[in-house]
């Protein structure tokens, strides 16, 4: 059951000129969130912007003894709402509704977990990596960005023994190009008898390429989709994705309720 909190901003850490991490005091949400779930956030009580925005829960914040105290969100400044988040001040209150949506299905060993992230699509993988680490699952993060300065939280993932495969579009860190290229090579090199679960979040083109690559190698893939969302609760029907139904045909399904995590092979990739 989701709760709505007027959550106090504990910290706002800029990561670059566009990216930032806002930490919110939200114990009830933190305690109930599973990896891949999201919150609906509104950074102003005024009418512009009017609607909330969906964000994957990035980190679960905890005290030293492990008590959940809040959540953070990873934001990229692209419009009015993310501009407000970029400029958020500690002490300010931000409406935060959650946790919402269907989380990732977390695999167990002996399966390996390969996470594929593009840009701000890194967001759902911090909590997933923690869950995988707790289960002792060998985990790799394929992480692509435009340039080296936009690869964030690498030490966070290293501390969880996550194997990092980095790409940048300008070649300033890791391999030059898109993240799907090394994913494709590694899948090709992997023995068919060794199970692996793919998890992907990022730009639509990257998700489509990841879904095709997973299908090519016969591997299961869970994608976290991002759609324009009005309410996050199934009321408005704005966030639909074409998903295969029991009749084999594609139907519009609300990604806020059926997702945001969906099986890649059940979606239509245009």
């Amino acid at each position, binding site marked *: 059951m989701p709760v709505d909190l007027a959550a106090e901003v504990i910290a706002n850490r800029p990561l670059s000129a566009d990216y930032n991490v806002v930490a919110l005091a939200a114990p009830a949400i933190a305690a109930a969130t599973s990896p891949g779930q999201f919150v609906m956030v*509104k950074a102003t009580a005024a009418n512009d912007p009017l609607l909330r925005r969906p964000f994957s829960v990035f980190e679960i914040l905890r005290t030293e003894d492990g008590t959940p105290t809040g959540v953070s969100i990873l934001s990229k400044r692209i419009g009015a709402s993310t501009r407000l988040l970029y400029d958020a001040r500690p002490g300010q209150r931000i409406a935060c509704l959650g946790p919402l949506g269907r989380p990732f299905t977390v695999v167990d060993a002996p399966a390996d977990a390969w996470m594929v992230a593009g840009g701000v699509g890194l967001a759902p993988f911090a909590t997933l990596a923690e869950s995988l680490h707790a289960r002792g699952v060998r985990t790799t993060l394929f992480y692509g960005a435009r340039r080296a300065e936009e690869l964030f939280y690498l030490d966070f993932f290293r501390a969880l023994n996550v194997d990092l495969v980095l790409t940048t579009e300008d070649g300033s860190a890791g391999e030059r190009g898109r993240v799907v290229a090394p994913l494709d090579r590694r899948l090709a090199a992997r023995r068919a008898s060794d199970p692996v679960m793919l998890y992907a979040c990022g730009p639509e083109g990257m998700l489509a390429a990841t879904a095709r690559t997973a299908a090519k190698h016969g591997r299961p893939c869970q994608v976290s989709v991002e759609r324009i969302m009005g309410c996050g609760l199934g009321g408005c*029907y704005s966030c639909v994705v074409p998903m295969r139904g029991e009749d084999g045909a594609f139907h519009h399904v609300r990604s806020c309720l059926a997702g945001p995590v969906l099986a890649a092979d059940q979606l239509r990739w245009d």
Partner: protein
Amino acid sequence: MRSSVGQRTDMDLSVAIGSLALRNPLIAASGCFGYGVEYADVVDLSSLGGIVVKGLFLKEREGHPPPRIVETPAGMLNAIGLQGIGVRRFVDEKLPELRARHATVFVNVCGTTLDEYVEVSRILSDAEGVAAIELNISCPNIKEGGIQFGCSLNGTFDVVNAVRKVTRLPVIPKLTPNVTDVASFARAAEDAGADAVSLVNTFLAMVIDVETRRPKISNVVGGLSGPAIRPIAVRMVYECRQTVKIPIIGMGGIADARDALEFMIAGATAVQIGTANFVDPFIWSKLLDGMRDYLHRHDIPRVADLVGSLDTHHALTERSGA
């Protein structure tokens, strides 16, 4: 009227739409509350005056491709395209839970033909747990659905008249604001036997991405809702109040208790909340508290006493004295 009541919880919030008694005037608007069951986790459905479930045709509909909404100043544009599960699946899959949760269920009925409105209404009349029928003759977003009835006085009369003949449920046509004189449509509905009218549906509108020169929603045009439209909607409710005797259910940009009361003072017996529920799904208890507080401060025991209580005399006096 004086009240001897001290406790705010003793304020009487009940209203009546004809023979249909509502525990309070707050109704969730169609298309903004799914089929109601989606919200059962966040709000006690029985605590609302009613819920209007998403528009239903005879058959399932896929709706428009995304993007389906875009934000506007103090509002939003939508063109969902009436995606829906069809009336039979609604009766089988959703209505039992709504009944179990003691929700007062209004069903928004759609049709591409007069016969479809009649058939959907007939099926709902035979189902257990439907309190009223809201006739969607005003969706601006699909070519073949409803609006050809809602933009013609004869069409409005005909669809209300036809549905009236096949159901004992209250029949409430939902009027479009995209006409010159909405009050004449309220009168046509009243003449055809409507038990009430609800208004307004959304205003036909458009948003263009200047950089790409593309429309921001796939349907090119869509319906504008939210606080931006509220003063126009209040004016339309006021005009209808001057014209018809049947109850009016007012809506358009209501975001707090004062907004709701504004519609009631203009002449609405009950109100619907749509877009604001997206912003704050927990809005309902805040609206109820705000209404009780207002009634207490003004020493008005029953919210129904506010309906159509607009004082135009003083406004006119001040104007003539200016």
